[in-house]
């Protein structure tokens, strides 16, 4: 056994190295991840589907829209142009869309023109295939007769049946209620004109530095518009607003929680130990623990999740416990016991408590969830480091003069002990039965809620803005899409077209308003050939119709010449893709040479018939992000519940090895019953149970088992142990009682659960004391 002196210095060197590494990490810049979804493992195994979902999330999180409203259209559009200009100058965005670019449209027309003989809109394709030439003829007559000089001569000259025009107009979906005017998307609503400027952020919506830049830009934009267009108002929606608000709130809450937690701790030490010195010492293991946890997390994961940091705050409670027990012993036995002896008294409880907690956290590792693994690593490392600090450093700390014990704490502790240690033999079973009954009723009342939307903690201002945006524009964000996969682009396009046919039927039945597929812009070679042959087969009938309409013979001759060759000129995918006709948002190629496309749905009225029609189609998968994530939350809530049970079982094994089954059960019962009562409280107050309640229960176990183990391991005065547990409870509640007031639903769940669970554990802790308890009790504390 190395000397305590050797261990002291050895540990000191190790900690110095650790702090140096931590400092390096901090200086290099730490990435804090605030996306709650990263806590969950990818539910999907197929890497192509995973990539497609990531592409969608990327598109979704990068999109930002600015809607500029003013009493006149001119003001609204001028202000929108100014906004577009500022967005361009900022360099923070790509794909900025304020005013339609004229040359782009002409380029588009010229690009497709050589292939027009084989390009048809879905509807025309069907009409030609079904030989509905009369309807095509009527469409031309209608267009010419309409009181709008829209189709001028040169246009009809190149496209007498208007087939190419309709193919191209298929590129323009209805953008909700927004109409193009002066090249800008504008809507009139409630006597105001609203003009849209949309963009993609050039950065990560979750990255703190981008959020800062965006906030600065947005503040500047609002101020500029206020100055230059006082009548205009700005509404903006986009994930970036939510992530920025989330970061601000998380930062504020974390600093508030640590702040109040610190104030509470100071008060606890002043009243408990009549000195702040123990606090200074107690903070040492905690800070070393957090530093170690932090270093381990960054080293293993490269970044740290905001939820991990929150759990880190909870470490205050756990790491403090060791120090609190140490100083309680010291305070009440100071004249008689040396620090070394005080440590020896609490060492068995500390060691067993640390081991059981670390074992408890191992359940997290098996979930396969990166977020949970991060929390487990953070908590375990922090605990072990804090444990080492207490064991190696405390006995050799410079002389501590604790000036005595606090009477109130001791009296309160004795009262809790006395409740269970009463002469009345029937009190314990009765009390337990009553608690169990109330708990059962509460759990019976509890609801479960796995909907991801319930975890959305965006400020109501953003919610109002997004409703206003949807109200004015008629556009709502979509999380529903199909992923179509294949070994080659042609295969993907052909599969997509099959899907598109069924989606067009769904649109006709009113189940869907529209969809957006890559094959709209580049039909498969097979479809191009089929289009060409269908048009070619009907050439005589069409020519007769064109003649009836009254076209000049040379116009008809030119139309015939388009279909002279037996095979069409095919627009191939590669050429199309390189031309970057559409922003590259819906198409992806995997490293393994497979391809996928996203087919977006909008205005879904009834998804069931749409899915039924698409069922069984090869290479077609339906994804509903909201539903998918909610399912994942449910799966992981259930998994975590199982993990909690597994952890309890593991701990029961360790405890049985040490105490035998009966006492092990009495040590396990208080945290178990306390955890159940925390669920029950949620039932009574109508807070639905989520994954985060389950996570918190694991924490209650980690903390609570320490309480009962200390109680079971006490060799000396049980009151002193109870005082240590009381102080632990107070520190934990200080850390978590505030979480219950958090605006973030996930944190609120954790807060309520831990608050109730840990308080109940305190009250039930005396149940863990040995039956043949005849340890001396100090009687000098009087109420």
């Amino acid at each position, binding site marked *: 056994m190395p000397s305590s002196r050797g261990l002291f210095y050895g540990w000191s060197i190790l900690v110095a190295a650790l702090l140096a590494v931590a400092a390096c990490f901090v200086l290099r810049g730490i990435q804090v991840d605030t996306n709650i979804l990263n806590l969950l493992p990818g539910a999907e195994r197929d890497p192509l589907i995973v990539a497609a979902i990531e592409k969608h999330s990327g598109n979704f999180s990068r999109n930002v829209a600015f809607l500029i409203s003013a009493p006149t259209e001119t003001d609204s559009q001028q202000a929108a142009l100014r906004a577009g200009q500022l967005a361009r100058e900022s360099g923070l965005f790509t794909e900025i869309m304020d005013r339609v670019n004229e040359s782009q449209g002409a380029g588009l027309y010229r690009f497709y023109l050589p292939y027009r003989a084989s390009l048809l809109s879905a509807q025309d394709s069907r009409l030609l295939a079904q030989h509905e030439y009369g309807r095509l003829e009527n469409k031309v007559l*209608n267009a010419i007769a309409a009181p*709008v000089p829209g189709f001028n001569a040169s246009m009809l000259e190149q496209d007498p049946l208007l087939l190419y025009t309709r193919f191209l107009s298929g*590129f323009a979906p209805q953008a909700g209620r927004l109409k*193009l005017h002066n*090249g800008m998307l504008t809507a009139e609503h409630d006597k105001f004109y609203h003009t849209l400027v949309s963009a993609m952020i050039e950065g990560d919506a979750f990255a703190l530095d981008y959020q800062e830049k965006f906030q600065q830009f947005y503040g500047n934009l609002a101020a500029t518009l206020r100055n230059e267009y006082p009548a205009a108002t700005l509404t903006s929606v986009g994930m970036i607003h939510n992530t920025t608000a989330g970061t601000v709130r998380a930062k504020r809450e974390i600093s508030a929680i640590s702040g109040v937690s610190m104030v509470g701790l100071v008060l606890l030490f002043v009243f408990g130990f009549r000195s702040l010195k123990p606090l200074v010492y107690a903070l040492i293991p905690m800070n070393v623990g957090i530093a170690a946890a932090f270093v381990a997390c960054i080293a293993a994961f490269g970044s740290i999740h905001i939820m991990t940091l929150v759990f880190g705050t909870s470490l205050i409670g756990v790491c403090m416990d060791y120090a609190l027990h140490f100083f309680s012993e010291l305070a009440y036995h100071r004249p008689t016991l040396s620090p070394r002896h005080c440590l020896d008294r609490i060492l068995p409880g500390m060691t067993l408590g640390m081991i059981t907690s670390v074992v408890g956290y191992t359940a997290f590792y098996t979930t396969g969830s990166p977020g949970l693994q991060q929390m487990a690593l953070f908590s375990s490392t922090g605990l072990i480091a804090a444990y080492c600090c207490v064991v190696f450093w405390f006995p050799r700390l410079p002389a501590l003069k604790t000036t005595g014990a606090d009477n109130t704490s001791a009296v309160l502790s004795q009262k809790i002990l006395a409740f269970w240690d009463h002469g009345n033999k029937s009190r314990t079973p009765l009390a337990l039965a009553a608690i169990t009954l109330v708990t059962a009723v509460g759990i019976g009342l509890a609801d479960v809620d796995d909907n991801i939307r319930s975890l959305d903690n965006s400020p109501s201002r953003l919610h109002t803005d997004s409703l206003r945006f949807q109200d004015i524009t008629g556009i709502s*964000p979509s999380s529903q899409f199909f992923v179509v996969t294949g070994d080659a682009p042609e295969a993907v396009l052909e599969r997509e077209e099959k899907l598109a046919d069924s989606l067009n039927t769904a649109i006709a039945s009113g189940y869907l308003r529209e969809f957006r597929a890559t094959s709209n812009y580049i039909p498969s070679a097979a479809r191009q050939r089929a289009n060409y042959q269908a048009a070619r087969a009907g050439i005589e009938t069409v020519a007769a119709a064109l003649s009836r309409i*009254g076209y*000049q013979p040379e116009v008809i001759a030119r139309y015939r010449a388009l279909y002279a060759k037996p095979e069409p000129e095919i627009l191939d995918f590669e050429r199309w893709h390189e031309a970057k006709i559409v922003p590259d948002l819906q198409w992806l190629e995997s490293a393994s040479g497979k391809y996928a496309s996203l087919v977006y749905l909008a205005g879904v009225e009834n998804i069931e018939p749409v899915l039924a029609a698409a069922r069984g189609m090869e290479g077609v998968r339906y994804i509903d992000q909201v539903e998918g994530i909610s399912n994942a939350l449910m799966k992981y809530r259930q998994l975590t519940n199982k993990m909690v049970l597994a952890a309890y079982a593991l701990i029961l094994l360790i405890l049985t090895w040490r105490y035998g089954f009966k006492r092990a059960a009495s040590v396990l019962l208080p945290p178990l019953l306390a955890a159940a009562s925390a669920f029950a409280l949620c039932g009574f107050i109508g807070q639905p149970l989520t994954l985060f309640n389950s996570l918190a229960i694991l924490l209650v176990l980690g903390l609570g088992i320490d309480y009962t183990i200390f109680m079971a391991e006490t060799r000396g005065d049980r009151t002193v142990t109870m005082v240590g547990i009381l102080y632990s409870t107070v520190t934990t509640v200080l850390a978590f009682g505030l979480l219950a007031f958090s605006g973030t639903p996930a944190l609120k769940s954790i807060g309520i659960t831990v608050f109730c669970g840990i308080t109940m554990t305190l009250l039930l802790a005396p149940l863990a004391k040995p039956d043949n308890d005849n340890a001396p009790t100090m009687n000098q504390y009087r109420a």
Partner: protein
Amino acid sequence: MRKILLQRLGAALIYFMAGAAAAEAPAFDYATAAKEPAPEILSSIRKMQDVELLRGEFKQRKNLKILKQPFLSNGWFIFSRNDGLYWEITEPLPGAYLIGKKGIRPAAGSSGTSVDSPFADGVGRMFSSIMGARLEELESYFDIYYRSLGSRWQLGLKPRNSRIATFMSGIEITGGRYIDTIRIVEGGGDTTEITFTAVTEELPDGLASRYFNAQQ
């Protein structure tokens, strides 16, 4: 929301179509026309602006170079100062449209197919302004020239903005108590002439509201 990004592509189509035409001088004699209206023209136009409801028949003649013969169509209309224009084509193919501030769209229940023209909205608004003789609205798009023809009058409209000029070189409106003809000179020399007959302010009660309210 992201589909707005794709919107640009379709929207851009307008411009190629607009760019495909060349301008030509209209027949209206701008040289002899005044840029300020004579008082009698102005008073005629003011009277027209006061009209609440108007019904009439129309004949449309489109002279397109790509067609061997002029394309003829006819039908009837109701104009309402508040609700815009209901325009029903009876020959050669039935179809009905609502034209007003919100552009042009097929009337509900009409057999007319939707107007695929991307100009539809802007032109619809303009058309509605012409029918109501709302000069202030027209002035934001056109320079207006005035000619007096005894008891009748003529207006010549020249596009002020280049985007309109690329597909329309001018509009000539002839009228007396009401508008008699509208002649739109498109790019490439194609013309559209609309002649109104049997125009009256006398409408059976509720007729107008039947056509406009049915669309709400």
